[in-house]
C-alpha cells in the first residue's frame, strides 16, 4: 500500500511544480542543504544513546533487569519473555529490532509471544531517542513531564496490544 502512496505523492508534487512554473530542482537542492548541518547537531545524541544501549546489552545487565521486570509486567498481562523488548524499545530502534528478531527465532512469528512482540514493536516509538533528537538544536534541556508521560502512554499501548492479541487468538 505504502509502495503506491509515496511515489504518487511525488508525481503529484512534480506535476504541480511544472504547472505552477516553480523550479523543483532549485527547491530540492535548497531544502536538502540543511541535512548535514542537522545531522551534526543530532550525532552526539545518537552516539551517546547507541553506545550506552550496546554496552547495556553486551554486559548482561539487560538480561538481569529483564528477568527482574518480567514478573512485574506479567501482572498486567505482558508475557515475561517480552520484558527486554518493552525496556529497550523506547531507547533504540536498532537495538530493539535485534531483540524482536531474537523473539521470532525463539518463539516463532505466529505464536502468542511472536504476535504480541510484533504488536508492541509496531505500535510504539523510540521515546528517548525522539526526545533527544527533537531538542538537539535547542537550548531547552528540561523537558518537564514529556518523557514520563510518553513512556507511560507507550506502556499502556503495550498492555492494550497484548490484550488484543490474546482476544484474537
Amino acid at each position, binding site marked *: 500500500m505504502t509502495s503506491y502512496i509515496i511515489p504518487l505523492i511525488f508525481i503529484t508534487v512534480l506535476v504541480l511544480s511544472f504547472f505552477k512554473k516553480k*523550479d*523543483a530542482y532549485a527547491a530540492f537542492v535548497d531544502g536538502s542543504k540543511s541535512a548535514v548541518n542537522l545531522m551534526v547537531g543530532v550525532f552526539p545524541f545518537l552516539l551517546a544513546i547507541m553506545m550506552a544501549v550496546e554496552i*547495556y546489552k553486551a*554486559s548482561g545487565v539487560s538480561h538481569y533487569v529483564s528477568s527482574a521486570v518480567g514478573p512485574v509486567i506479567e501482572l498486567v498481562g505482558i508475557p515475561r519473555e517480552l520484558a527486554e523488548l518493552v525496556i529497550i524499545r523506547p531507547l533504540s530502534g536498532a537495538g530493539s529490532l535485534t531483540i524482536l528478531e531474537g523473539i521470532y527465532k525463539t518463539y516463532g512469528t505466529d505464536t502468542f509471544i511472536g504476535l504480541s512482540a*510484533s504488536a508492541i514493536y509496531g505500535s510504539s516509538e523510540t521515546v528517548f531517542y*525522539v526526545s533527544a533528537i527533537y531538542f538537539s538544536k535547542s537550548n531547552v534541556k528540561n523537558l518537564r513531564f514529556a518523557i514520563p508521560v510518553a513512556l*507511560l502512554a507507550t506502556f499502556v499501548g503495550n498492555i492494550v496490544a497484548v490484550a488484543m492479541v490474546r482476544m484474537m487468538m
Partner: protein
Amino acid sequence: MSKAWFVMLLASLIALVITNPNDAVTAMIRGSQGAVTLAITLCALYGFWLGFMAIVEKVGLTDKLAKILAPVVRFLFGKDISPKTKKYLTVNMSANLIGLGNAATPMGIKAIESMETEGQTKASLPMIMLVVISATSLQLIPTTVIGLRAAHGSLNPTAFLIPSIVATITSTVVGVTLVKLLGKVLPNKEKSKSMKSEKDGYAWSSTEK
C-alpha cells in the same frame, strides 16, 4: 534522560568489570560505530526528505495541508503558535501519520527550534505536546515489522495489525490527554526544579568533552 543514560552506563560498566572487562571498550566502540553508520544513513534520508519537502512547500501544498490540519493543530498546541511553526508541525504530523518517521524528524527539530524563546531552559507545553505525539506516534502501517515477520516465515505477516493499530491509537490518546491534564495541574513556575534540571542538562551535554 541524563539519569537513565547515567544509570545504564554505570551499571553496565560495573557488571563488565566484574565479569568480562575485555568486552567493555569493545561494546562501547561497537555502539559508537553503529551510531556513525546510522548517522550516514540518516544524512541521506534527511537530505532527501528535506529536499522533497522544499518542493512541496514551493508549490504551496504545505499551506493547504496546514489549513486542513489547522483545527487539529489548534486543539493540540493552542492558539499561540506562529504560522511558521504551524507549517513545521503540520508536515511533521503528516509524515508521522504515513509512517515516514525519518521525514518527520527534521521538521520536528525545526518546530522545536522555532517555538523556542530566548533564554528558555524549560520545555513549553506545545513542545511537550510535540514530543509526546511524536514519541507515541500513530503508526498505521508498521512496514518494518511486516517485512521482518515475512522474512522469518510468518504465514500471515499482517496478523498483528489490528492489535498494533488499536495500541498505537490508545497510546497517543493517553499521551495527549495526560499532557492536557498535567499542563493544567502543574504550573511551569517551580524555581528549584528548574535549577536542578539545568544541571541535568549540562551533565548530559558535556559528558564527552
